[in-house]
């Protein structure tokens, strides 16, 4: 940290209209060439604080009086849009969370960088093109990709385009708002390396905002923890993570490692669910195109009381496997058996009692519950299929709620009256009411905050052990996997690349791809030395 801070924020408070402030008492400084991390859960106000610097708050939100944001000694609070504009992209640039929606879909990648170049420098046409190619190279992109539209680029490439256009004006400060949250682990590691290198090479200062402690710890020297709109703690990374003072920081740390390890393996029981040489086709583009084989040759088996982890990046086909198991897609080849009997395929077979013994919990609890039905109505559905008389359904549903740690009073509620974690508990209860032998969990915690993730994972593990469920746990998060699964299957591009006991696969991966995945996993520094109350 240098003596003269580049950015100095004091008593920042932000409110929507006349409602109570959503951000208050936020103060921190960022020195020249320093990367400062802000960490907190969604809704903690960390992104809003970053937006406020450039005057990009959403409509209705405003910075309250008494706040101060000084950049290079100049007060930014109270400046008009027109007065802030010369700073935007020139002195202070920003990289956003979701590159897919943060790039304009109708504009080629090169044009989006070029407009940022032209905004800050007067250059002839050829000069702009050369500068764009230079920026593409700097962020590790082939300049030939400039002619592509955003939807023709991968997530990592999209984020590199965003970074290139942020660099176009040679800014002194980069605001990075969850820049890798939407990316796969290996891509996240590459983009973090890129940002790290840029900061060093260009002497950039960076405000790095993330919900992920490990990612922030990797990027920043000093870190601030935000919770409920307040900054609860700040200091050097080692100090904040090593001996956290605030309760909220300890909770955040606990959320990352409060799971404990997967139970040691008892002798393997006979597998109940077997998948052999499964293949799934999706229709090709256009009416005469050949179908595309998205999954092929996948075999796996899960025993009662065991958890099998299915890991892979987006597009690896792991969700397609889950869909095939519950009839949402029809396999093109292969056998799926439950207790030795072939499982009916397709949605038509779902009503058969055998198929009902395989249940699934989906990734997004906001989309997987019908918004117009009460929780009671949602939970009555599996009971109806089981033939439970209408009079008994409500009591059974209430018992199920208790099992997932919710009060019976929630029966009368609608999904929008519940939090994400509560909704996911409802989805779990719905699956359990069908009395499954096999429970498939497809990225069930990836839409949830860290602390909520921990609670839901604990619940799942407890339910799984008590009911001796065979669980297929699909995730991209190796850390979660290590805590939950005894065995793991690694998928890439629709095929299984490695399988075996979790400790062996993650500890001593045989395949290059698995090694890449393990290496890309964000880790907290001195993890074992951090005291965590569990």
């Amino acid at each position: 940290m240098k003596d003269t801070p580049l950015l100095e924020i004091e008593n920042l408070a932000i409110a929507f209209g006349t409602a109570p402030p959503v951000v208050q008492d936020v103060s921190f400084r960022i020195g020249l060439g320093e990367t400062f991390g802000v960490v907190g859960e969604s809704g903690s106000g960390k992104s809003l604080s970053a937006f406020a610097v450039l005057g990009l708050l959403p409509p209705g939100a405003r910075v309250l009086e008494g706040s101060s944001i000084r950049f290079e000694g100049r007060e930014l609070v109270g400046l008009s849009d027109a007065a802030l504009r010369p700073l935007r992209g020139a002195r202070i640039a920003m990289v956003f969370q979701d590159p897919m929606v943060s790039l304009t879909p109708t504009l080629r990648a090169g044009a989006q960088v070029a407009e940022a170049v032209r905004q800050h420098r007067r250059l002839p046409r050829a000069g702009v093109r050369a500068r764009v190619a230079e920026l593409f190279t700097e962020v590790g992109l082939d300049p030939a990709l400039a002619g592509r539209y955003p939807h023709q680029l991968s997530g990592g490439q999209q984020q590199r385009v965003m970074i290139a256009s942020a660099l176009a004006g040679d800014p002194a400060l980069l605001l990075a708002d969850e820049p890798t949250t939407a990316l796969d682990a290996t891509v996240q590691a590459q983009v973090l390396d890129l940002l790290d290198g840029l900061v060093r090479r260009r002497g950039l200062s960076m405000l790095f905002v993330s919900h992920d402690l490990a990612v922030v710890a990797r990027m920043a020297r000093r870190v601030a923890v935000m919770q409920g709109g307040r900054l609860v703690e700040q200091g050097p990374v080692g100090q904040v993570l090593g001996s956290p003072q605030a309760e909220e920081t300890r909770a955040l740390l606990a959320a990352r490692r409060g799971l404990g390890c997967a139970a040691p393996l008892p002798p393997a029981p006979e597998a109940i669910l077997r998948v052999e040489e499964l293949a799934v086709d999706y229709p090709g583009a256009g009416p005469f195109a050949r179908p595309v084989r998205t999954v092929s040759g996948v075999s796996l088996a899960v025993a009662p009381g065991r958890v099998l982890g299915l890991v892979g990046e987006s597009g690896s086909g792991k969700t397609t496997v889950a869909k095939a198991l519950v009839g949402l897609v029809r396999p093109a080849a292969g056998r799926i058996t439950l207790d030795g009997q072939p499982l009916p395929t397709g949605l038509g077979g779902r009503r058969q009692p055998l198929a009902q013994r395989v249940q699934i919990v989906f990734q997004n609890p906001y989309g997987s519950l019908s918004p117009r039905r009460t929780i009671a109505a949602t939970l009555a559905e599996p009971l109806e299929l089981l033939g439970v008389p209408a009079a008994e359904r409500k009591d059974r549903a209430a018992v199920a709620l208790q099992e997932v740690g919710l009060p019976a009073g929630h029966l009368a509620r609608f999904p929008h009256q519940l939090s994400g974690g509560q909704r996911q508990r409802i989805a779990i209860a719905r699956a359990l009411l069908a009395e499954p032998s096999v429970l498939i969990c497809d990225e069930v915690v990836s839409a949830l905050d860290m602390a909520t993730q921990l609670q839901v994972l604990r619940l799942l593990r407890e339910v799984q052990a008590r009911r001796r469920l065979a669980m297929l746990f699909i995730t991209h998060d190796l850390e979660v996997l290590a805590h939950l699964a005894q065995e793991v299957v690694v998928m890439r591009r629709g095929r299984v690349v490695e399988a075996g006991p979790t400790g062996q696969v993650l500890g001593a991966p045989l395949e290059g791809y698995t090694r890449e995945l393990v290496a890309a996993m964000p880790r907290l520094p001195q993890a074992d030395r951090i005291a965590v109350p569990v």
Partner: protein
Amino acid sequence: MSGALGLALPTLRALGLVAAITVLAFLCIGAVPGDVVDVLALQGDLTADQQAALREEMGVGRPLHERFLAWLGPALRGEFGQSLRFGLPVSELMWNALPTTLKLAGLSFGIGLLLAFVVAVGAIARPRSALPALVQAVNIWSVAVPTFCVGIAAILVFSIWLGWLPVIGNLWVPALILAIDRAGELVKPLYDELKEQQGAPHVRAARAKGLSAWRIGVVHVLPGAVPVLLALSSVGLAGLLGGSLTMEVLFGLPGIGSLTLNAVHGRDWPLLQAVVVLLATGVVLINALADLLHRLVDPRPRR
């Protein structure tokens, strides 16, 4: 989808659609009771023998499928036969009437689109002005007030009471009435779409680059609203063909609308059939054009 296949399929679909409409129209027209000879008989005392002779001569007594096949051959070559009522070639009648209808529909569509665009963009750019209220007002007007009512009121006020305009043959008054109606249907969805685009993450990212409001609007906000505009315009333009028919009749304009009314009254099936084929082809063409433009504006593959 590959280029050649991408063009061939929609073309085939469009042709099939026109063919289906043609057959359906023939059946519907054939199902209407009474024929042109009945109409003539009512007007000018024809004996049963004369009627039979006339039917024989005009070929209206023959079975439907025979008539259709006899009509289809020349129709494929662009010859739609003689009008039973006027004794003139159908193509000549349509050719004379078409410019009036095209002028009316084109004028009202152009003015309506311009009006909707100016009001919607203005309401976005100046949210504190009266323009957002105008968006609602024009929209409600269009939904609630039928164009023929406005037409009658306009004739009453401007032609009869004030005497400013001739009662018959005025093109601009019906064009304006239809334009406001069209604008009302377009302006609200356009405004809503622009508003949504304006709050989208990519627009925030564009602001973070330091771009001017003008550039953000033209390059980052407006293109996103074009698909909505195209979809509504193609539906609306097709509706305009229908809407202009009543206006033509009301304002005594010798367009396709007046021609259609005459053909229906006179059971002049060759004329009616030709008009239906013409309108169907027009609507299909407009939709195909909108589809093509959409592909040009939005590079993303359709879901």
